């Protein structure tokens, strides 16, 4: 009797949806909600093996140090440059490749997409060895053709950081191009045709039709680029083979979290960095949602 009741309940339409979403709810609680609460708690503690102590704001006070400021500066600068390049450039390229006059669309799309298939580790290997210090390495060879002396690319921030940006550009250009292309394909052809009748040129059509109509896709690409920019770590880790670039020129917020939390085993301090990053992410998301929401309503 009891068994039948349970069975009936299991199959009733009231319970069924909960059965389906149960794995998510469990995973959300265990592997998201609990860690988020836990990281806030840890950030007020000194966490040593077998000895956890409440130390108030000490971890946060220690955050005010030049290395952490450098990590913040690097992460934010990286994010801003990536946003400034990896949104407008692929957007314009998508409009060009989408035009009827373009030939070899599939070929170019595939070619630009290839780097997205390589892992960051392989990409990092390629870039580290292409921007090696010797005169024979690819980058120095190319500038040598213009009569320039070899550069120690990854030793100075003025060249190392651009290489990092180039690596990300290389890996992401194809994917972002495809995002914008998929957005362009949902714009009705008639809008462009009527613009043609009004004598609008390519630039005007881009600015007054494609750009505003791509708004939802742009918002999405913006979101994932902010996310990727703020949480960047592996690119830098690979380019400088380890979490230790000269003068910390490639140290990011996540890199600093990894250094303090794992390499130095100072988990409370690492947690404070995590909380900081969490706050930044939430603020940026809120601002972005507000702005894009306003645009959609307008």
């Amino acid at each position: 009797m009891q068994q039948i009741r349970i069975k009936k309940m299991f199959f009733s339409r009231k319970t069924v949806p909960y059965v389906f979403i149960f794995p998510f709810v469990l995973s959300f609680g265990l592997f998201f909600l609990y860690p988020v609460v836990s990281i806030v708690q840890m950030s007020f503690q000194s966490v040593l093996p077998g000895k956890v102590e409440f130390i108030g704001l000490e971890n946060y006070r220690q955050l005010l140090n030049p290395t952490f400021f450098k990590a913040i500066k690097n992460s934010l600068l990286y994010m801003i440059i990536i946003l400034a390049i990896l949104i407008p450039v692929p957007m314009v390229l998508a409009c060009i490749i989408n035009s009827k006059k373009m030939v070899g669309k599939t070929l170019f799309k595939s070619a630009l997409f290839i780097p997205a298939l390589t892992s960051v580790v392989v990409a990092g290997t390629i870039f580290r060895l292409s921007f090696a210090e010797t005169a024979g390495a690819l980058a120095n060879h190319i500038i040598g053709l213009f009569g320039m002396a070899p550069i120690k690319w990854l030793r100075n921030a003025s060249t190392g950081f651009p290489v990092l940006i180039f690596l990300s550009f290389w890996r992401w250009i194809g994917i972002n191009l495809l995002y914008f292309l998929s957005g362009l394909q949902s714009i009705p052809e008639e809008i462009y045709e009527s613009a043609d009748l009004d004598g609008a040129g390519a630039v005007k059509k881009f600015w007054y039709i494609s750009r505003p109509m791509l708004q939802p896709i742009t918002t999405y690409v913006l979101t994932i680029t902010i996310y990727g920019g703020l949480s960047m770590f592996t690119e830098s880790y690979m380019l400088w083979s380890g979490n230790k670039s000269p003068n910390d020129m490639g140290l990011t917020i996540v890199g600093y979290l990894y250094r303090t939390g794992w390499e130095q085993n100072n988990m409370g301090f690492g947690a404070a960095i995590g909380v900081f990053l969490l706050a930044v992410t939430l603020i940026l998301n809120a601002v972005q949602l507000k702005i894009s929401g306003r645009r959609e309503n307008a």
Partner: protein
Amino acid sequence: MRKTISKRKRKVSIIAIIMVLLFAILAIIIIFPVVCLVIGAFKPSQEIIRFGLNANLDFSIMNFQNYINLFTGDSDYFKWFINSLTITIVQTLLSIFISGAVAYGFAMYEFPLKKLFFSCVLLIMMIPTEIIMLPLYKEIINFKLIDTFAGVILPFIAAPIPIFFFHQFLKGISPTFLDAARIDGCTEYGIFFKIILPLMAPAFASMGIYQGMISWNNFLWPLIVLKSADKLTLPIGLSTLLTPYSSNYDILLAGSVTAIVPIFILFLLFQRYFIAGMTAGGVKG
């Protein structure tokens, strides 16, 4: 009249040539580093240490020795390869199936707190996982899952992006379609397994590739969880070879090429699903 048309046509073709040229240059810049990697993999380690990667085709020093070392030597490369393959396959299958079921629950039923739970999916999408890795690491230690593949896979099985993607996909299926099955005596679970799962095949293919790429290339979390040398994944293993004093450049370069070749082949075969899967988040509304 005719003159202006031909003039316009010529102008158009010049623009077309410029556009093609622009993309050709860009494509060369993008592909060139990969070409250098492939060329470098045929050169001896000392050559790479002394000159780095470049496009010099010097056939007097190029040979297959690196690949011979890779395939016949005693490096851990294929152990890493198998580890990565195992993690990728298990994680992809599990997360696609579970996310599909969760998405079905969200898309096809009305229930209290549905909005709240679904906003949890969106919340996870917005917050970088790196933030919570410290407590997650402690949790995995407590669960005794440290240094196991389960520890790598388990926390990310109910993945928000596949759930969101499948949810959008299932929204396109009319609920009356399900009522017909209910009248025929199908249970709610039967509907999911017999009707919905087959319908979702194309969405599964796209998300399978998306999730597969993520698992295959995943770096930071496996780096934290996996400790023993024989459990490392391919990206972590390769990264250990890239040290300034490395004498393992033969394995590193030949191994990098060998790591991307299977993905290139899959890409050429299933291009449509790759593009759909890797740009899946863009499908909105």
